[in-house]
């Protein structure tokens, strides 16, 4: 009788400089591929393909599918234990990407603690927990995309990049916090435009930051720099469409589709749970889509920002 062999995960082969993908940064990284510059050139995959990959990653693996959905119940139980007496209608955003997720943290902190300095402390704490979860999920998804299954390696890779991911989340919180104050100050003129443009810009420029941090194991500053440079590569319009689609569907869906939004209860019903779990899956699918986008463009993003050519001297 043949013994069932324990399935082991083969690590990717070392590259020429002895550096594995996902390892700590090596002193030298392979040169970035040349970016196509001709009109209409794009390095981004089509939006539908990113979404398909995201869906296949988030829903096609049982572990990847169940962990976020179970986490939602855990969060709700923790909120009840903390004293919350009604199911918040922001619950569909519990695992949303920054800055929508940051808004959830702010709303829940306010609900639990009112408007005090403790609220700020709670927001910071919630953001830390969010960073932990995001880092682990990115590691898991990346591993599913590489190997088709989840082991301890992916989550550990994510945890190793906790600090850059935390930085990313805090940047999101700060932009949301001061941006919203700024929006209020602008009033009815430019305020509504900025109210939409600001979160979309955060998603567009910053969403790659935790992904590149987890995949490359690099510092927050380098991850931020690469994220911004990656978002601006040729074909960025696809990334913008994905960012806008995520923002609008996530926010409008929560505002207009949440069932029993006006039923204030501590015992959510079947319809509410279906919507919240569906929204959580939606958030995971888009996280997967952004990871798929990054993986497609990664080789085109140089490790360091290209130096600008010096301005020609005047004679």
């Amino acid at each position: 009788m043949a013994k069932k062999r324990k399935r082991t995960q083969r690590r990717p082969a070392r590259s020429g400089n002895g550096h594995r993908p996902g390892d700590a940064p090596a002193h030298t990284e392979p040169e970035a591929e040349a970016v196509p510059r001709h009109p209409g050139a794009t390095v981004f995959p089509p939006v539908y393909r990113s979404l398909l990959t995201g869906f296949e990653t988030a829903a096609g693996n049982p572990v990847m599918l169940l962990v976020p959905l179970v986490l939602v119940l855990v969060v709700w139980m923790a909120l009840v234990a903390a004293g919350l007496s009604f199911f918040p209608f922001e619950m569909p955003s519990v695992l949303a990407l920054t800055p929508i997720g940051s808004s959830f943290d702010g709303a829940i902190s306010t609900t639990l603690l009112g408007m005090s300095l403790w609220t700020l402390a709670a927001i910071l704490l919630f953001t830390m927990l969010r960073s932990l979860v995001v880092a682990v999920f990115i590691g898991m998804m990346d591993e599913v995309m590489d190997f088709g299954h989840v082991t301890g390696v992916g989550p550990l890779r994510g945890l190793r990049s906790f600090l850059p991911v935390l930085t990313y989340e805090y940047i999101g919180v700060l932009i949301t916090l001061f941006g919203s104050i700024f929006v209020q100050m602008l009033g009815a003129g430019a305020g509504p435009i900025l109210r939409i443009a600001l979160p979309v810009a955060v998603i567009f420029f910053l969403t790659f930051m935790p992904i590149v941090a987890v995949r490359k194991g690099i510092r927050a500053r380098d991850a931020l720099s690469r994220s911004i440079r990656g978002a601006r590569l040729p074909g960025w319009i696809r990334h913008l469409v994905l960012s806008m689609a995520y923002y609008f569907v996530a926010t409008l869906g929560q505002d207009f589709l949440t069932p029993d939004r006006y039923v204030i209860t501590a015992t959510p019903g079947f319809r509410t749970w279906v919507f919240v779990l569906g929204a959580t899956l939606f958030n995971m699918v888009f996280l997967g889509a952004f990871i798929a986008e990054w993986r497609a463009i990664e080789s085109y993003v140089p490790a360091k920002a290209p130096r600008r050519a010096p301005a020609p001297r005047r004679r």
Partner: protein
Amino acid sequence: MPASARRFALVAASVLALMFAPGFAAAADEEEPGGVVAPAGPVGDWSQFQGDAAHTADAPGGPPPPYEPAWEFPVDGPSGPSSPVIHEGVVYAVGPESVFAVDPATGEQKWSVPRTPGSANPVPAIASVGGEDMLVFLQGSGQETSLAMVNLHDHERAVQLPVIEQDASRGVTVFSDTAYVGDVRGTVHAVDLTERETLWTYDVGESPVILPPPADVGSLYVNGADQRGIQHLAALDATTGEQRWKVPIGPLGLTTSGLSLSDGTIYAAFADGSVRAYAAEDGNLRWSSRVLRPAPSPFLPVSPFMAPAVSGGMVFIGGGSGGVYALDASTGELVWDYQFSGGPAGFILRSAPVVASTSVLIGLQDGRLGAVDTVEGTGIFEVAVDADPSGRRPLKGIAVSDELIVASRGGGGGGLVAYRPDPEGNLTATASPTRFRLGPTLASYALALLLVAGVAFAIAWIVRALIARRSPPPDPMEDAGDDLAGEVG
């Protein structure tokens, strides 16, 4: 921007404002718990907003639920009549173009007197002036706003009182023979009803004085925001208008409810979810208790058009999201809370809470009258005449007499609605839906998880199969070439 982001903005602004708001901390005093039920007696008059000059809304001798509709009195106009007042059993209210009296037995109009139309229908008040009972009310709008009064016995015509010159608040407070009214510019006017002249005015600040201020012997209590945006609570000498004390109570944008006064303590609810008690003697904070649930955007946890009710050592608050809260009046400890619900308009409270017998009564946006047991905190009764789930005909101010509960119905086709005890009606004991139930939660969650995860996994499997079917089969020559290259390498 999502609603949660808007709330986040509010937090941000408030936190920053808190950092610069002076005098914002105070310790809560430990006192004996309340909860003593006052002995029931005749209700007497419900002479003004929330029953009396202190706005306690307490009628321990009022009729207990269950109720049945007694009569309806329709009032023309887009917004219905004012909250009613009751004097010697007769119901009085202010309509858009008249003030009128209604027979409590039949619901028929007894008389009416023309009124200069105003922007709203503020709550009138009953006063005794020179031994004559008078109904004092506001009329007109803008610079034409004025007080007027009509004799309840001859009710021939309204007597003009001093002009306020600003849109006035939602009603009049009468104590002794003086009427007090606030305006939208933040000024309180005291009018001597005997001499028919303005006694004094006091500038509370820049924000409107929305509800009639409570008064007791010698003092009037008002709140409003000053030029810097800091809200204050102040006590004024009722005779001279002199300021006795003034304390800061909150930063810019912190909406407050109206004030109620009982046993030397002023009670108010705040948009940060807190209910606070201040000493009427010096304005010191006695306790602050953060109990109000936040309301779904754009509603606030507390409405500026409500005021707490105080009865039997308990304070009852109506929250902006359909919650009714009972607190110990001496400590601020939450005794119970009950959540109304049901449809987009079902969770919005429109009337300030009123205590009748051992029930807290509340009017809802969809027209229902709800009752909560003051001891158990359970929902015991709901009734509606032509309930409107869209919320266009809310049940607003409630008045209580020995025999009747009378409420105003807003919106087009509004009017007065009266309820009387129903000897054959049934009471319920519904627990608040905000009490967490683990079993039903887990059952609903498990079913939803099965559905969502099952459907998602199935779709993912189909998508993967379709992609695998469309992708070309591996080229054996390519594999062979790779192997060969590997060997050569």
